[in-house]
């Protein structure tokens, strides 16, 4: 039991701090930028990304044990499709519960689809599979990846104010400056991991 918890904590810290998966590998970077630019649903979106990452990771752990006869590349595609189908089912169940049990507003349901269908959520079980994580480490990795997404959004949203200045050339204002800022952050996180 203690060993499982330790595995989970190590996986969370590794993915979150040492190798922030959004800056280091680019997973979910489009959604992260959009969330940073429109922080109105920040808490809701963050919660949803954590929920989908962990739920998909948990369900996928039991699927991945079955198909071991394929080559590495075929396995990635087949498992990617398997996990995508599981994610689709998870999304439908989640929206039905939100809609008919919690009477969630339309905007929240719209945000749920963005949180569910992003590359970070789908990447988590594939990364677990590649690294042959145990069940507890898989969950730890999922939590770490989702928290990395949240941390990245916070860091980028704080930069939005500072990159909005008059001395900047017009062509660089907005998204181009933000891309370069994210590049510098990515370089910093790469320094941590190496």
């Amino acid at each position: 039991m203690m060993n499982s918890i330790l595995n989970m904590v190590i996986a969370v810290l590794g993915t979150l701090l040492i190798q922030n998966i959004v800056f280091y590998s680019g997973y979910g970077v489009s959604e992260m930028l959009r969330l940073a630019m429109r922080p109105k649903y920040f808490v809701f979106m963050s919660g949803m990304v954590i929920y989908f990452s962990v739920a998909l990771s948990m369900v996928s752990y039991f699927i991945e044990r079955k198909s071991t006869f394929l080559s590495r590349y075929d396995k990635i595609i087949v498992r990617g499709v398997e996990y995508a189908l599981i994610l689709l089912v998870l999304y439908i169940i989640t929206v039905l519960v939100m809609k008919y049990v919690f009477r969630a507003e339309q905007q929240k349901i719209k945000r749920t689809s963005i949180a569910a269908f992003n590359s970070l959520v789908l990447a988590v079980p594939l990364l677990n599979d590649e690294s042959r994580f145990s069940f507890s480490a898989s969950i730890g990795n999922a939590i770490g990846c989702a928290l990395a997404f949240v941390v990245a959004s916070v860091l980028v949203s704080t930069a939005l104010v500072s990159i909005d200045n008059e001395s900047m050339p017009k062509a660089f204002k907005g998204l181009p400056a933000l891309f370069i800022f994210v590049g510098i952050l990515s370089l910093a996180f790469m320094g941590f991991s190496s």
Partner: protein
Amino acid sequence: MKEIFSNGVLHKNPLLMYAIGLCPIVAVTTTLRQAVAVSIVTSIITIVVCMLTNLFIKKLTMWIRVAVYFGIAICVLIPSVWLIDFIFPNVSSGLGIYVALLSVNTLYLYRSEGFSRKNTFGKSVLDALFTSLGYTLAACIIGAIREILANGTIWDKKLPFGTIIPAFSKPFGAFIIIGFVAAVFAAISNFASTQHYVTIDFDEIEDEADNAAINALEKKMSNGGSFEVKVLSEEGTTYDE
């Protein structure tokens, strides 16, 4: 048609102006060949989803539509990857798990929800084609620059450069290159733009019945041309509605 073309390729380039579909571009388009491979798969998925959206899906409720888009994308992914394997042997295997992640590329969601379900079939197909073309163009420029800087090659052919900077094959190098390419596209878009941008703060209109803003809009409309209304959100950032 000209407007759809210029919007898809330049003014509303999904990758550079809206940061859509960044994940595979940042991570694996380290060469021009890989950029072309990623773009072909993304384009096929986008065009098929947009066509089917316009024909069959547009009357469904939003959350079911999104699920159907994703279902179609999953179905189209495998044949698209087979096609890439056929055209560029050994390229898609270098994409690793990012091949599977192409099914969640938000480009098809952005165009299906933003354009295909509200327009005619012909316009919808053209929009999907030109938006995919814009994505492909941006991806190829970024892939080519990264390949030249990081490997000193282009399409696997050696270039006569003495200095190579391998760091540009890393994600941080990609972000910086994307930033500069986006700035160039923004400058060209500003220069070539025929659109008149009018920013309206609806709170202000509600409070003071801001006739000046309405008059400005009417004056612009009387001069002809197309318009894009940008709505100020509560946080003060502008976004297309």
